[in-house]
């Protein structure tokens, strides 16, 4: 498989220069490298510009509701163990509306790869603050500046039970593709938070903003949760790369032995009825 094989007939409608293009390319490259055939891939997305990814990657797709990607993806994973599950969502989608589902999916260590297009803004609804936006930033819904503390998805993920936690940047497509590939090859919940500028409504959060701040993670023990947590809380600089990875914790499917027997067929319930006599 080549990256181009994953193209569809649909032309992207993202704004020219949108950070999503790098994620799109990263996904295709990683899929090709992992050798995942389109019919074995379930792509799940939420609502927003990130959700439109579903039209552009050749795979089975489920374009769900705002904030609800995690339960849909979990259902797919549990019901059809043969499918690889790759989820695309935005920061509003996953860290705002869907933050409860996000945390619970990680507690469960569902075997899926979750890419969050984190641009600190609601792009498709034309510029409201997202949960990762910093205090003081003005937006359409916070004209006098955000007053809510920004949410730290990396810290939450490490704490909640994700077993692969990474952060990529649309300005470094090579590293991004590697991180996605790592997620696809990981057995368990893989979060890849991506700094992905919204060139139209993203305000100050543009490529330059990130380029000045991002630093590649080096000399870090990815199996050490405490130092990964400390790294996620770095001020001023924004570390990108793999924060945390642990192997060996059973994934959600492995915790459900009944899945092997779950076949749709008429069942004999005589025994169950006899218990009620």
């Amino acid at each position: 498989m080549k990256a181009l094989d994953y193209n569809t007939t649909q032309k992207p409608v993202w704004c020219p220069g949108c950070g999503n293009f790098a994620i799109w390319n990263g996904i295709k490259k990683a899929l090709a490298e992992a050798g995942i055939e389109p019919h074995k891939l379930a792509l799940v997305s939420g609502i927003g510009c990130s959700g439109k990814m579903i039209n552009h990657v050749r795979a089975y797709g489920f374009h769900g509701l705002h904030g609800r990607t995690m339960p849909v993806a979990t259902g797919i994973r549990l019901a059809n163990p043969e499918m690889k599950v790759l989820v695309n969502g935005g920061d509003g989608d996953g860290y705002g509306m869907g933050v409860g589902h996000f945390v619970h999916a990680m507690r469960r260590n569902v075997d899926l790869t979750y890419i969050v297009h984190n641009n600190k803004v609601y792009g498709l609804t034309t510029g409201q603050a997202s949960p990762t936006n910093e205090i003081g930033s003005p937006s359409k819904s916070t004209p006098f500046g955000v007053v809510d503390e920004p949410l730290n998805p990396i810290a939450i993920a490490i704490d909640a039970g994700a077993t692969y936690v990474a952060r990529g940047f649309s300005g470094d497509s090579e590293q991004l593709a590697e991180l996605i590939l790592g997620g696809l090859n990981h057995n368990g919940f893989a979060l890849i938070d991506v700094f992905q500028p919204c060139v139209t409504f993203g305000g100050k959060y543009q490529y330059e903003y990130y380029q000045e701040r991002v630093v590649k993670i080096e000399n870090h023990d990815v199996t050490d949760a405490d130092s990964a947590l400390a790294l996620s809380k770095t001020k001023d600089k924004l570390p990108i790369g793999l924060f945390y990875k642990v192997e060996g914790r059973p994934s959600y499917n492995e915790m459900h032995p009944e899945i092997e027997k779950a076949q749709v067929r008429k069942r004999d319930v005589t025994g169950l009825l006899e218990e009620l006599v």
Partner: protein
Amino acid sequence: MSSVYVWKIGGPAGFGIMTTGPMFAKVLKASGYHVHGYPEYPSLVRGGYNCYQIAFGDTEVTAPYKKIDMYVALSDECFNREKFEESTYVIGDFANLKNAGDIKAKKIDVPLMGIVKELDGPDIMRNSVALGAAAALLGLDFALLEKNLTAAYKEKVAKINIEAAKKGYESVRERYSVVCKPAPDKCAPALYVTGNEATSIGAIAGGLTFFSTYPMTPASSILHYLAKCTREHGLVVKHTEDEISGINMAVGAAFAGARAMTGTAGGGFSLMNEGLGLAAITEVPIVLAVSQRPGPATGMATWTEQGDLKYVINSSQSEFIRAVYSPGSVEECYKFTFDALNLAEKYHIPVFVLLDKFLSESHFMAEKMPETGDVERGYLFEGNEEEPMAYFNRFAEKKDGVGVRVIPGTKGGLYIASSNEHTDEGFVSDKADVRKRQVERRFRKLKPLTDDMPHPELFGKKDAPLTFVCFGSVKMMLLEAMKHTDKFNFIHFPAVNPLNWEKVKKMLEGRNLCVMENNYTAQLRGIIAENTGIIIEKTFLKYDGRPFFNEEIVSFAEEAAK
């Protein structure tokens, strides 16, 4: 003895009434009686007032009564809650019951706590002493009580409880005579089953492989029942973080090929609304068991109502079709849940099994469960080995508006299940012609779906002066009342949407109609009026959280028929 005898046990939550009641009902059943069990309880773990009523007789009994023939009082609260007649037998430890002083009922004094202390058992064991006493008073064979106690508890606990029951039994037999003789007919073995159990077993029979939800009374026992069956029967059951996740997970599983279902009460269903619309536009088949209780919001958590009929029919934005079964018996719970799973996969639509607390949690006797058809999965794409990368026209019409479903993993079947309006392959589109074509196609399923729904049925004598019109569990209450008066017959709706309303209209015309519903606004009446133009003026409505008791129906019917 009158044709139906009513036995009841009451006391605070935490006293074991909800296990003791059904167990004693099984003793009565094994003694040859027909039995119906109706529980009432507040939303409390300890305290308050719980009771379990057993109405039994020598013919089928299907609904609760106001009257009480024999009562087991476990606390003083019982005397504030219940009205006793002079003829009522009240079993109690009267040395320890202060409020019992002025009741007119016949007191059967049993030293419940004395016996418990004598045996050095836990306080809760007074139940077993009381059951022993009741069994003696009803002339039941002690061996049947012993057998059921053995089945209900672990060996050691069973042993001491049997001893306690024996002492209660002997204490009464020495001092009182039998007040109610066992029925001559032996109707055991028959099932003693709740609506939720029947719904769950129907789902398992129907090949369910995935169930996900958040617990909410009175639907929780569906979750519990299915959860304990996972390993043996091969199904995945998930208690999710909320109902939103519950329905979305079920939708994801169904998309991926599972037979999926969720279950909740009205409050949880409120959270499921967007997921319902998602299932509708993605044409992912799911079944929803919704058990009604009084609302809005939390309402009365542990009581019954039929207030969600219009809600399930109209919920979620815009327009789409869904099927709504409204079973009236445990047999229908079983059969319709089986059928619902088939119907959802045949038409790729959401299908409801609409229950209520009365049906979900009351016990009914059933000889056996009805025959069902086969598990049918509808049109499924088998795959195309030659073109593994090809997109598939999932949302193009095959027949009657229904497309061909593909289980992800199938070669050549790529498509997108999109919550946006979409093309035949599922790509997002808001073109006018695409929207129009998809809406019309989805609605073309309505006609064949209508033909698959069970039609309303007339019960009772054809020429009765009054015809009640009802849906769901009211059927059970009317069947009971019919034993006591010939002034009415009734038309029961085992499903409410969609129906062949021309046929319904013909059935309703020329009768003295009265709608009977457990709600305030007569929702079925509204739906009938909207679809047939027939406005049923007479109403018999109840919305206090209780089902219709037999005496209420009989006196209403006698009055209305005058």
